[in-house]
């Protein structure tokens, strides 16, 4: 049974326990396919943190097993990945969930809504 407190309005938040690296990777892939090093660089650019390569591959394998990303044919030694439709839905649900928490947090800190 769906739990509205746990699940986002747009569907269950399957990324809730997937870890920050998974969310960062999906966010990075949301605007197009990328390979490992490009992902690290992109995430460093928009989130200001550098994913360790071991963490990156762990999260990529997990996301692929969950069907949220898929591997594209390898280019030379590089393996590009793209977000799947299920991945886009999951990312959206997770961002909705974060947004609600952010709004409540800002209100309670007296910062008002964004």
């Amino acid at each position, binding site marked *: 049974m769906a739990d509205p407190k746990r699940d986002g309005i747009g569907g269950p938040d399957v990324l809730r326990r997937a870890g920050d690296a998974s969310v960062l990777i999906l966010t990075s892939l949301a605007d197009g396919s990328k390979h490992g*090093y490009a992902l690290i660089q992109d995430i460093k650019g928009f989130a200001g943190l550098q994913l*360790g*390569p*071991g*963490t*990156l*591959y*762990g999260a990529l*394998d997990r996301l692929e097993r969950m069907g949220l990303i898929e591997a594209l044919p390898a280019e030379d030694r590089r*393996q590009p990945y793209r977000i799947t439709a299920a991945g886009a839905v999951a990312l959206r649900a997770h961002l909705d969930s974060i947004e609600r928490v952010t709004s409540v947090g800002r209100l309670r800190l007296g910062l008002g809504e964004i």
Partner: protein
Amino acid sequence: MPGSRSMRQVESALRCYPRRWRGRHGDEAAEIASLLIRGGTPARSVAWSYLMGAARTRLVTGPRRRLGAAVGALLLAAGSLGVSLALLSSPAPANAANVTHSRTAHPRPADLRPAGPRHEIGRGAPDRCVRHDDC
């Protein structure tokens, strides 16, 4: 190209991954390491990240592996507990005295109590140790 010593560290860490993983990601992982090190990331940090990743990969690569890891951990814990109990119930007077503190207000948890008729704690056991008349 990063120094051969740096890459040796990374290659050693990459060898800790399962063969199947190395077959799929190994070349790219080595290339990423090389690019990161060239960009200023310490080789040790890259190698450590791969080492931790390899440990996680080996622990969580499927239900059978997870079950195996869980059984292994339980056996290890059981083995450690067995060693502890063996030490507790060893014939050394100090340890024996420790074990016979059976009628205290706060008894030890049941799983730490040594089993067997010689040390029946809190169930009408004799106050002195039957193995050592001088206890």
